[in-house]
């Protein structure tokens, strides 16, 4: 008797709770609509600017929708059951159990759905691994807590440090447009060229990542790994270190500037000139005083 009353009371309570939670959920929905659209605009992967990133974007969309359809299908069945097969509606329990045919079917069908996902994914994996025949090669080295870009074909390199000021981080100044995603010296590459990136690190594991390129490669000290990209649209693309590397892991962003062929050629010429100007003459003789002065400058 107590149990029956409890069941009746509980379905009334359940309805009341359902009404309350519906109100809460619609309140939340209204809130998210009311907030300015530009503020919460991030729902998906960043816009792809390389063929690989485009493949990844499409692969994700395809797989996500398959999952959504299956999810809706399966849980429609469950919610129907919750509605129609409840004891409070007087439904009597059937006692069936075990059915080998059904078990085989719902093993085989998901397996085939997975095959349909595995095919396009395999093609993209193989494409991402093919760093052969690049137009240029750049060596990226992760440091605690900055990046170094070495144009090994051109004979110069530079460090790339976070440009956002301490004051902005600690709330003393207003935050810039590219807060935490801006550097003093971005990596510069020409548009439309296959750029092979050799990635390594100086101390701990970091990870060089540019979402718009579909690129992420761990930077492992003592090892050199590679990845590649071909950016198809000029612009500035930003990413962040993607492997915990110590206290300033969140403060060593990656910025890549993709320039047109002409702009890149100009930039390259300027930088090579500047680099060779400040480089030492290889045949210069060094005396002790000069060596000490240089050491002091380099190590302090």
């Amino acid at each position, binding site marked *: 008797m107590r149990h029956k009353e409890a069941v009746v009371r509980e379905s009334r309570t359940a309805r009341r709770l359902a009404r309350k939670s519906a109100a809460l959920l619609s309140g939340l929905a209204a809130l998210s609509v009311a907030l300015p659209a530009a503020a919460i605009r991030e729902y998906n992967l960043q816009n792809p600017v390389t063929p690989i990133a485009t493949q990844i974007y499409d692969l994700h969309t395809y797989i996500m929708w398959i999952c959504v359809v299956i999810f809706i299908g399966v849980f429609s069945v469950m919610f129907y059951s919750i509605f129609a097969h409840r004891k409070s509606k007087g439904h009597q329990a059937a006692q069936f159990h075990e059915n080998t045919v059904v078990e085989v079917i719902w*093993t085989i069908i998901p397996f085939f759905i997975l095959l349909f996902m595995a095919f396009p994914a395999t093609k993209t994996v193989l494409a991402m691994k093919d760093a052969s025949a690049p137009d240029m090669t750049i060596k990226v080295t992760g440091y605690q807590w900055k990046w170094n870009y070495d144009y090994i074909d051109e004979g110069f390199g530079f460090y790339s440090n976070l440009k956002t000021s301490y004051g902005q981080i600690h709330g003393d100044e207003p935050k810039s447009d590219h807060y935490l995603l801006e550097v003093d010296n971005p990596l510069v590459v020409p548009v439309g060229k296959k750029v092979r990136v050799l990635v390594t690190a100086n101390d701990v594991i970091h990870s060089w990542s540019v979402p718009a390129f579909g690129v992420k490669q761990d930077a492992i000290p003592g090892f050199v790994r590679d990845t590649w990209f071909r950016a198809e649209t000029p612009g500035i693309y930003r990413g962040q270190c993607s492997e915990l590397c110590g*206290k300033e*892991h969140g403060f060593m962003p990656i910025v890549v500037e993709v320039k047109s062929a002409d702009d890149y050629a100009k930039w390259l010429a300027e930088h090579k000139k500047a680099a060779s100007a400040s480089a030492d003459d290889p045949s210069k003789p060094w005396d002790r005083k000069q060596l000490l002065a240089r050491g002091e400058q380099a190590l302090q």
Partner: protein
Amino acid sequence: MSSIPHDHAGHGDEHGHAHHPAGIMRWIMTTNHKDIGTLYLWFSFIMFLVGGTLALTIRTELFEPGLQIVDPEFFNSLTTLHGLIMIFGAIMPAAVGFANWQVPLMIGAPDMAFARMNNWSFWLLPFAAVLLLSSFLVPGGAAAGGWTLYAPLSVQAGMGMDLTIFAVHIMGASSIMGSINIITTILNLRAPGMTLMKMPLFCWTWLITAYLLIAVMPVLAGTVTMLLTDRHFGTSFFNAAGGGDPVMFQHIFWFFGHPEVYIMILPAFGIVSTIIPTFSRKPLFGYASMVYATASIAILSFLVWAHHMFTVGMPAAGQLFFMYMTMLIAVPTGVKVFNWLATMWKGSLTFETPMLFAIGFIFLFTMGGFTGLVLAITPVDIQLQDTYYVVAHFHYVLVAGSLFAFFGGIYYWLPKWSGKMYDETLGKWHFWLSMIFFNVAFFPMHFLGLAGMPRRIPDYATQFTDWNQVSTVGAFGFGLSQILFLFIVLKALRFGGPASARPWEGADTLEWTVPSPAPYHTFETPPVVS
């Protein structure tokens, strides 16, 4: 299986309380599986609240861009210890607590096979927890390399890392001893007539989990020992300059780490497989299939570890192998979900709090399973590795998965353990508040991850602000709802109405044949199972 032989004939009811001390010594010296189960469960709840406090500190810092309340190194310690405490201090001990209470009762055994070792398995844990938590107070602070402790960063760390390594060793020893106990108990102490294919699925999931634990906890021990020797004894396991390889740390760690996540979910599967048939008043649809599916998941779990490492730069063949193997795990997992649904189908359903949590589990764990499938696809994982998408995925499967199943289990079995009924209305409040706030906290993290927000950063670019704020609000709501849970349990223990031997009409396992609360010693004469 009491070690003191005595004559049953004239003893009757006074038997129960005559042989153990009272007060604090009872709890320190106990070899009784019920007491030890209770100790594990209370310990895990306390650690859950501690880990939750760390999480709320993290979410407070992440409410707005900029650094407001903690410095970056301490933030890294918070994320590290939050992970270690929740995994090793909350989820795993809770699962063992359920095993201790329920396995002997469900197989008709008087206690665990090694009752004294059982005591030690528990009491190692508070000691390990003190080591771990005290690491906040040593010079250099607590370990700050993420719960995954990747070398070489963890080689650089201060003393807090050593305390963490010792704590991990101790917790590992506890798990291994507990698992030996569970396997021996299940294989040897089942009541006559209870064949392996007749025992409750919860016992099957724990049998398989125990084998996983024995297989991989030593691997974790090896990993952290190599880390310790790299740190202090001049070895170079993970140092390229000395001939080692930092990525080897990841391989060995994740060889433990992947089975570890199945260790955390399989007992939850077992609890859900107990609750659903009870409240559907219908037998579990495919018992044999569920056993095979669980075993398949366990075996496959050894073959997928490098899906945590898709960005290290392994050859295409490696990436493809691990992608295919990881995708395959979706098949037996799907089989389990379909079996639960088929159990509910055409049942006679009621929705008491345990059933609400079990249904919530199926719904949200499946969502987590789908995001796991998305992450299994290597090219997509390259974009999502080390972003908040991963954080969303594992919180769906571990919180909305394991934790919800454990809540369901507590509500389900508390009447048996304590003899008191909890307040059903408050239980439902706990469910709905947890359900709603959990999703508010963690669903937006999918968007953050897709948009490119990395993990383990104390400060973020301004375009990520809004979802972070929504998430923080949800986290606080979820956290406060767990205080309600504590209140519900304490209220039940103190003021709850009396529970009958079988308060759930559809329950049919052996524990419901003994009185509520279960007597201190049960099944001293094994029941005969038809």
